[in-house]
C-alpha cells in the first residue's frame, strides 16, 4: 500500500475540471433541493441538455459560442417543460416525474432513432476545439503543487473556477435578499408564504430554471473536458452523486456545495486508489476482488455515506448539527 500515491490520487481528483463541474452542478442542485426543498431527481437531464445542446450545435457546424447559447436555451426549455406542470406536486411525486423526464431524455438521446443527430450510444466527440484554440498556456506542462497538469487542462480549470466563483457570488447576492427568504419559506411552510401573498408557483419555476441553467453549465464543462458526450454519462447516478455532495457539504448554504464537492472527490479518489491497489494485490494472489469489484465498492460506499450522513450529520460535515437550517423569520 502506497500512502503517497493515494494522497496524490485524491489531490489530482480535487484539482480536476470534473470536480469543478460537480461543484457548479451542486450549486444548482443545492438551490433547488437545499434552499427550496424541491427534490429534482432529473438534474442529470439539465446537464445532458446543456452538454448535448453544445455538442449537437457544433456537429451541425454552428460554432462553439453559438453552441453555448443553444446549450443554455436547451436546458432552459427542458427545465420549463419539466417544471411548469410538476412543481405543484408533492415531494415524492415531483421526484418521480423529474427522474422519469431525465430518463426519457437519456433513452431518446441514446436511441438509434436519434442517432443521426446525437450519435446514439457512441455520443459526439471533438466539439470544443474552438475553446481550446484560445488556450493562452500552450501545450507545456504546469505544476500545481505536486500535481502536473497540461496547459489545456489548466486553461479549462481557470475558466471553470472563474465561472464557479461568478455563479457562487451571484447566488449569494440573490439568496441573501427577500428572494432567499421566500425560498426558505417554500421549503419550510408553503402555505405560510402563500398567505403572505407570494406566488410560490412562480418562485419554484424560477428555482427550477436557474438551477437547471447552472446544471447546463456544469454539463458543458464536463463535455468540454472530455471532448465527448455520451448519454450514459448523464444517467441518474450523477444526480445521486450530486445529492451526496450537497448533503455532505450542507444544505441551504451558498458555498458549502463547493467544499462538499472537494471533500467528496478527495474521499472517492482516495478510496478508489486504495481499492484498486487492494484489487491488484488480490488479483495477484488469485482472489475474487478484482478491478470491477473495486469500482463497484466505491459506489457502495457512496450509498452508505448518504445513509449515514442523513442519520448522523443531516446538516452536513461543515455545519454543526446543532445549528438548524435557516428558518423563516417574520420581521415585524
Amino acid at each position, binding site marked *: 500500500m502506497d500512502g503517497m500515491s493515494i494522497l496524490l490520487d485524491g489531490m489530482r481528483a480535487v484539482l480536476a475540471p470534473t470536480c469543478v463541474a460537480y461543484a457548479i452542478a451542486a450549486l444548482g442542485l443545492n438551490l433547488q433541493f437545499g434552499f427550496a426543498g424541491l427534490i429534482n431527481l432529473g438534474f442529470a437531464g439539465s446537464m445532458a441538455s446543456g452538454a448535448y445542446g453544445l455538442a449537437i450545435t457544433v456537429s451541425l457546424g454552428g460554432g462553439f459560442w453559438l453552441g453555448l447559447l443553444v446549450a443554455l436555451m436547451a436546458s432552459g426549455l427542458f427545465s420549463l417543460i419539466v417544471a411548469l406542470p410538476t412543481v405543484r406536486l408533492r415531494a415524492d*411525486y415531483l421526484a418521480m416525474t423529474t427522474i422519469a423526464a431525465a430518463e426519457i431524455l437519456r433513452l431518446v438521446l441514446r436511441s*438509434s432513432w436519434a442517432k443521426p443527430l446525437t450519435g446514439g450510444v457512441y455520443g459526439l466527440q471533438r466539439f470544443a476545439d474552438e475553446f481550446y484554440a484560445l488556450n493562452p498556456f500552450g501545450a507545456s506542462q504546469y505544476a500545481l503543487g505536486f500535481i502536473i497538469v497540461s496547459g489545456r487542462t489548466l486553461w479549462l480549470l481557470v475558466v471553470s473556477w472563474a465561472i464557479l466563483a461568478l455563479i457562487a457570488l451571484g447566488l449569494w447576492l440573490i439568496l441573501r435578499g427577500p428572494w432567499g427568504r421566500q425560498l426558505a419559506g417554500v421549503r419550510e411552510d408553503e402555505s405560510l408564504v402563500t398567505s403572505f401573498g407570494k406566488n410560490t408557483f412562480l418562485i419554484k419555476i424560477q428555482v427550477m430554471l436557474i438551477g437547471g441553467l447552472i446544471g447546463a453549465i456544469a454539463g458543458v464543462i464536463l463535455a468540454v473536458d472530455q471532448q465527448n458526450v455520451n448519454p450514459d454519462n448523464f444517467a441518474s447516478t450523477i444526480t445521486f452523486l450530486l445529492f451526496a455532495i450537497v448533503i455532505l457539504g450542507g444544505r441551504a448554504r451558498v458555498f458549502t456545495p463547493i467544499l462538499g464537492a472537494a471533500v467528496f472527490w478527495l474521499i472517492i479518489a482516495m478510496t478508489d486508489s486504495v481499492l484498486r491497489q487492494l484489487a491488484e494485490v488480490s488479483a495477484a494472489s488469485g482472489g475474487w476482488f478484482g478491478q470491477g469489484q473495486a469500482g463497484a465498492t466505491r459506489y*457502495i460506499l457512496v450509498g452508505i455515506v448518504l445513509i449515514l450522513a442523513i442519520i448522523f450529520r443531516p446538516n452536513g460535515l461543515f455545519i454543526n448539527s446543532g445549528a438548524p437550517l435557516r428558518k423563516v423569520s417574520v420581521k415585524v
Partner: protein
Amino acid sequence: MSLSSQTKVLALGAKEAPSKRGKAARKRIIVVTAVVIVVLIAGALTRGTTPMLQSVVDGLRLGLVLALIGVGLSLIFSTTGIFNFAQGEFATLGAGVALALNASVGMPVIPAIGIAVVVGALFGIVSEKLLWKPLRARKVDTISTLVVAIGLGIALRNLFLALMGGSSRSYTEFAVQDPLNFGGVSVTPKALASIVVSLVALGLLALFLKRTRAGQAIRAVADDPTLASATGIATGRQLILVWAIGSALAALGGTLLGLVEQVRWDMGNQVLLLVMAGVTVGGLGTVLGAVIGSVLIGIVTQASTLWIPAELKYVTALAVLVLILLLRPQGLFGRRERIG
C-alpha cells in the same frame, strides 16, 4: 368492539361516500379499458392481430411482475409514508439469491425461488428494524428519508455488481424452452408459469388484506396510523409485517423476472421506473390499483413496440407516468387527498 367494525368506521370517515367512490372508480375502469381496447384494435388493424395479441400476453406477464414488486412499494408507502427507491434492489436480491443457490450450490430452481422469497422477507424485516424504525424515531423528514432509500438502493445495487459481475446470467434450469403456440401467439411454459404464480400471489395478498385480522390491521394503519394505534393495534408490529410482505413479494417478482428474462445486477433498477409508473397510474396505497396500473403499464410498454423501436419502449411507460401525474396525480383509483 371487533376489529372489522372499527375499520368500517374508518372507511366511513373518508371524504366521499363509499358508494359514490365505487361508482366513480367503475366509470374510470370502463374509460381506461375502452382506451386500451381502442389502442389494441388500432394495433390489430395496422400491425396484424397476432403481433398485437403477442404484445398483450407479453405485457400481461411483465405487468404482473411489475405488480408484485409494486404492491410492496405501495403498501410500504401507504403505511409508513416512505417512498422506497430501493424496492428494485429488493427484487434483484430475490433473483440474485435464487441464482446463487441454483448456479453455485446446484439447488433446483423452484426451491431456490422459495428460499429467495424467505430471504427477501427477512431482509425487509431487518431493514425495518435497523433503518426505517430508527429514522422514524428520530423524526427524519420525508425528503431525507427519500435520500436514505436512494442511498440504500445505490449501495445494494453496487453490492450486487461486486458479487455477481456486470454480465447477465440465467438459471441452470428452464433457460431455453420451446414456446407453446396458441394460434400464432407463442408463450414459453416459464412465462405462463410466471403469469400464474403472480396471479396466485396477488390473490393471496388480497385475501390476506381483506379477510385476516392482521390484514385488516394493516389497512387500518394505512388509513390513519394514530387512530389505529389508539384503537389498540400494535402499529410497530404491523409495519414489520408490511416490510416483510413487501420485500418478499418484490423478491418473488425479481426471481420471476430473472426466470423469464435474465438475472443482472441492475435488473431491479431498470424496472423500478416502470414499477413506479404502474403503482402511480393505479393510485398509491390501493392494492387493486397497483395491480391494474402495473398490468396497464406492462401492456402499454409491450404494445408500443408495434409502432416505435423496441429500445424506446420504456419511454412510452415513462410518458404515461408523467401524463398521469399531471392529469390525476392521485392515480386512477387513489384518493384525492394524496396529492398534497
